[in-house]
């Protein structure tokens, strides 16, 4: 019995292949976006996890020191005096491939004698086998994982050209180790002696990895107190993972936007199905088919569409994920400086999410139309006028729901703190505005009516668009949501970019920046300061301080007496803050740092220094987009006091007397740096440019998602409006019978469509602006701690409206063409 009723539905879907296909495609795209983003996020997380693990192995704790690392004799003491067995020394240094755009690699120096328990991918004697001796004894001998060797195009026995701290060094690959999961990606393994010699770190190692339980770790911490500290091994890796979480939540939220639009699509299609089958359902009800049987049939059809769309979407999503994963990992590497390189990894959860979205979304979206269909009385006793009455009432109900949703969303945002409640509030606002869209369309129509007076065509257009609100309401809502998303994200990115430019212009105070892969020293800075045409220099040292909760980025800045840092303070009175910075045990912290640790001016910040902790006062919070992990800025004298580190990471050169672009000066600077391999002089315009390039690259993925959401919207509106027009063939036939020519009919259809598109586009503007505002002031703030300005330009708004109108006009093409060609009588026969 079911099969016959089911056949009605399936035949019906097959008879309207374009609409059915469009609904399937809409679901497919939504599923694809969700799956792709989830897979990309998952792969990125796994890749970072692997990166962390491949370097940390099974280590539970690490013994770390200050900027100078750990004295190697401490390891001997651990072994011979304290009898510690599960300890392994580690030297880790950044090197690059020689040649243009040298890819960064990590030179990892390990002691194979100690590596056994740590199970690092390249570490132990087991994996090295016969090359063990070569690695230990050979001059500049290194080993690579099979994947990395392939990437570099070398095999055992080849030599590899690297640059280490600016020097050109050729190393010899003595072993290529089987590395199935590519866990040794980006690693160059050497015996610890080789690494120490190559990195010129005599007497020092970077850390000692430990496998120990909590008690042993505590005992060791006491034993090494004064010389070094014991921190949890995962601290640094976990810290990075934690921070990229916010970034990944943003991506997921964007992908869910696509789902919202996809769900609207299914809803829309099934509403049309219910309308289309009104008479048939009336007959079936007359013949004695029960209400619930009608309901399940509609749901069954929804399930079919959902299933087809989901399967297609899973395949599409898998393909899309390949593209996205590269973008996500690039962003993570750029922004978080994490060594995250990897491939796409499948996750059952991601695919399950896709299935849930596709099937679940289809079913949920189908509920209301299914109930509507089930409530159609036998023999369709209701007239079309009644239907429209109902729709009007529904529009008011929806409007009420919309206002409620808006209020709820606002409440969520105002009264909550976290990122996820922020997103919930955002979605509530979007849904609220979507529910209000049909009402807006009515009002727009009412407003336009006076304009159309006296113009018959105009009247037809306006009435036609507004009168069939039962069908157009949902289409307008869906389209406005998607266009609003497109607008909102554009405005947010624009605002962010402007803020970054402002910030760069403000903070790039020096005329030239001197950097080197190896450390610089005061002598070089003095030599530069002594050059004619140089007004003064700033001296900077960057150091990642290892703490129990992860690394803290410290920026030590040395300036001449009367100068203070070129920063924009967001909290703390500038005069007082800079004064404290210059003379007291006070620091300035960047916004992300303050947000993460909940710090305000006057709070204390505890940092490990030497053999104890010091408490520094937070004098102010400044704006900094350079690092989402946050920075602690202190004056260099204080830094040297606390950490006994006199090296420099960078020197800022300020030209005297605002002399015009002086090539001679650049040449002279380079002369001073001649002895330092790899040292570079960059003018601040180049730094500016480079920073923006990285920014744009970071938002590449957001752009991609924005356009995907737009695509779903496009497909959605074409589908909805086409169905609308195709449904009114009789109406159009009557018009033509009455005397409206083909051109006139095309104008009417196109005009109605365009009007609806315009309504959606216009409604999307305030929604899009509100969205952008939420993204700028709520989401970004909560995710990263950044504040930024709000820049509203006309272009994104115009783009959005244009998208809506173009989609709507496109949707009118086929129906208009068809209505024009069809014999009038045929059209009249339809009802």
């Amino acid at each position, binding site marked *: 019995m079911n099969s016959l009723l089911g056949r009605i539905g399936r035949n019906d879907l097959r008879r309207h292949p374009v609409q059915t296909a469009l609904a399937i495609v809409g679901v497919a795209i939504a599923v694809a976006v969700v799956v792709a983003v989830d897979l990309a996020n998952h792969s990125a997380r796994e890749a970072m996890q692997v990166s962390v693990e491949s370097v940390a192995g099974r280590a539970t704790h690490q013994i770390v020191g200050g900027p100078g690392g750990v004295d190697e004799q401490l390891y001997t003491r651990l072994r011979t005096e304290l009898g510690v067995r599960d300890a392994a020394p580690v030297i880790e240094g950044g090197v690059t491939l020689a040649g243009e755009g040298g890819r960064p690699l990590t030179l990892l120096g390990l002691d194979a004698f100690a590596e056994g328990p740590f199970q690092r991918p390249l570490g132990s004697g087991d994996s090295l086998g016969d090359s063990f001796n070569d690695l230990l004894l050979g001059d500049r001998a290194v080993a690579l994982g099979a994947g990395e060797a392939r990437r570099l195009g070398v095999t055992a026995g080849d030599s590899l050209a690297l640059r280490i701290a600016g020097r050109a060094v050729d190393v010899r690959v003595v072993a290529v180790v089987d590395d199935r999961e590519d866990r040794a990606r980006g690693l160059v393994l050497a*015996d610890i*002696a080789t690494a120490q010699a190559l990195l010129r770190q005599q007497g020092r190692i970077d850390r000692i990895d430990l496998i120990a339980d909590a008690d042993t770790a505590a005992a060791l911490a006491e034993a090494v107190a004064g010389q070094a500290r014991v921190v949890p091994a995962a601290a640094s890796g976990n810290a990075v993972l934690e921070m990229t979480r916010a970034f990944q939540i943003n991506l997921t939220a964007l992908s869910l936007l696509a789902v919202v639009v996809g769900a609207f699509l299914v809803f829309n299609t099934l509403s049309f199905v219910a309308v289309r089958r009104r008479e048939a359902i009336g007959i079936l009800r007359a013949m004695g088919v029960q209400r619930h049987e009608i309901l399940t049939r509609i749901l069954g059809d929804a399930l*079919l569409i959902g299933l087809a769309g989901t399967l297609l979407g899973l395949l599409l999503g898998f393909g899309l994920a390949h593209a996205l994963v590269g973008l996500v990992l690039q962003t993570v590497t750029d922004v978080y400086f994490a060594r995250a390189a990897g491939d796409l990894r499948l996750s059952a959860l991601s695919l399950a999410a896709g299935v849930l979205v596709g099937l679940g979304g289809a079913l949920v979206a189908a509920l209301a139309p299914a109930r509507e269909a089930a409530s159609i009385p036998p023999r369709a006793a209701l007239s079309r006028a009644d239907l429209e009455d109902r729709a009007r009432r529904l529009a008011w109900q929806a409007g009420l729901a919309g206002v409620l949703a808006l209020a709820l969303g606002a409440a969520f945002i105002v009264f909550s703190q976290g990122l996820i409640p922020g997103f919930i509030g955002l979605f509530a606002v979007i849904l609220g505005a979507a529910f209000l869209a049909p009402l807006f369309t009515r009002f727009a129509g009412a407003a336009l009516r006076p304009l159309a007076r006296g113009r018959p065509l105009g009247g037809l257009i306006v009435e036609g668009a507004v009168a069939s609100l039962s069908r157009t309401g949902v289409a307008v809502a869906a389209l406005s949501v998607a266009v609003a998303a497109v607008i909102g994200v554009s405005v947010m990115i624009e605002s962010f970019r402007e803020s970054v430019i402002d910030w760069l212009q403000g903070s790039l105070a020096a005329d030239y920046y001197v950097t080197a892969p190896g450390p610089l020293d005061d002598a070089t800075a003095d030599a530069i300061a002594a050059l004619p045409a140089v007004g003064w220099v700033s001296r900077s040292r960057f150091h990642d301080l290892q703490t129990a909760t992860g690394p803290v980025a410290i920026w030590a800045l040395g300036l001449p007496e009367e100068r203070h840092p070129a920063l924009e303070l967001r909290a703390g009175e500038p005069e007082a803050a800079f004064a404290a910075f210059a003379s007291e045990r006070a620091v300035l912290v960047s916004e992300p740092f303050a947000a993460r640790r909940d710090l305000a001016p006057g709070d204390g910040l505890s940092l490990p220094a030497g053999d104890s902790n010091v408490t520094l006062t937070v004098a102010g919070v400044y704006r900094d987009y350079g690092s989402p992990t946050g920075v602690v800025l202190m004056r260099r004298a204080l830094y040297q006091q606390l950490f006994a580190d006199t090296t420099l990471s960078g020197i800022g050169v300020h030209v005297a007397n605002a002399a015009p672009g002086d090539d001679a000066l650049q040449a002279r600077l380079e002369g001073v740096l001649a002895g330092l391999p790899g040292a570079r002089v960059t003018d601040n315009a180049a730094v500016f440019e480079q920073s923006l390039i990285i920014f744009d690259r970071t938002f590449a993925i957001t752009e991609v998602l924005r356009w995907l959401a737009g695509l779903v919207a496009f497909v959605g509106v074409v589908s909805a409006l086409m169905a609308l027009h195709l449904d009114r063939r009789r109406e159009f036939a009557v018009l033509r019978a009455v005397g409206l020519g083909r051109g006139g009919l095309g104008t009417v259809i196109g005009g109605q469509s365009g009007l609806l598109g315009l309504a959606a586009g216009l409604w999307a503007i305030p929604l899009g602006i509100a969205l952008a505002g939420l993204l700028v002031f709520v989401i970004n703030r909560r995710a990263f701690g950044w504040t930024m300005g709000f820049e509203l330009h006309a272009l994104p708004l115009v783009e959005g409206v244009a998208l809506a109108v173009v989609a709507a006009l496109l949707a009118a093409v086929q129906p208009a063409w068809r209505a024009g060609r069809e014999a009038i009588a045929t059209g009249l026969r339809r009802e």
Partner: protein
Amino acid sequence: MRRMDPTVLALAALVGLAAGIGWWRFGGLADDAPADSQNLAELMGPSADADAFARVTGPRPLDFPADHGAHPDHRTEWWYFTGNLTSEEGRAYGFQLTLFRSALAPTPPDKDSDWATRQAWMGHFALTDISAGEHRASERYQRGALGLAGATVQPVRVWLDDWEIRSEGPDTLFPLRVQARESEAGIAIDLRLEATKGHVLQGDRGYSRKGRDPANASRYYSYTRLQAAGSVEFADQSAQVSGSAWLDREWSTSALDEGQQGWDWFALQLTDGRDLMVYRLRREDGRTDPNSAGILVDAAGAATPLAAGDFTLTPTRYWRSPRTGSRYPVAWELSVPSAGLRLAVTARVDAQEMPTTVRYWEGAVSVSGSASGVGYLEMTGY
């Protein structure tokens, strides 16, 4: 009436395709094969670059205390302690502590780092609780750099991590403090050794030939009767112990000939004050190699070398190792007619095979027959 709906067919095909892709993506992961144990004899045999190392080619006078220390240009070297101890309560223990040095290259590496070295050290520490019949052992590796492992003289100190032997005085080897601990295995010793007799030179004034090639030889001396006193820990028990110990010192580059399978080495301390050491080199075909030798030291310390023909060894009982499947003779008949010795040498505990990377049996034995005593037996190449 039940014709296959084309829509259903298409959906089934899509599902099948998706499942197929999923299947193909998930490959199985094979386990790594475990590493095999190695035969000690294989390590000791000739190898390609043996010529580059220093070789023992003839007798040379030994120079102490320098020769108590390391000989870095020779490939292999060890400090080899064994002993039988008894606690105040009458429990019997056997111990073995060996520190091996292995030179991985003929010349030192040219690297600007204190970690650079060509010396690899290995330590074996074993303790047998004879009364309980239980044997525990531990193995360690370390590089000979940065003070992590090595040997120095004045005072003599040889160590690997926290396993250490150290002479109390700057010029003499004994009294010697021997300390080793392995928490994971639950064993530790802390002994003070004193020499009751002087050292004896093995072979021809310390030149101990092992094969037809004169360069297949080692420099070899021993302290055959040491007094030991101190403490041991085994499982949760600790005890004050005393007893006798034996130190073998040997260094070489390649000691074994081609065709030599392994050896059986006996170090016996008899109650009449004599010490007897014999070793039998076994050929692959089972015959005794004519380079087998021994030494008999009387109570005063005078040593008489023994040649292969001066003693006979006959295994009388075998034990099969459950771990490796090797069959070791754990009871022997040893006769040295010229010394009037007809001895039965029996392992005090059968299961004293070393669970180390290098496979061999090393354990405390008791002596009975025409004389009685205790000793240690080492068997390789099974």
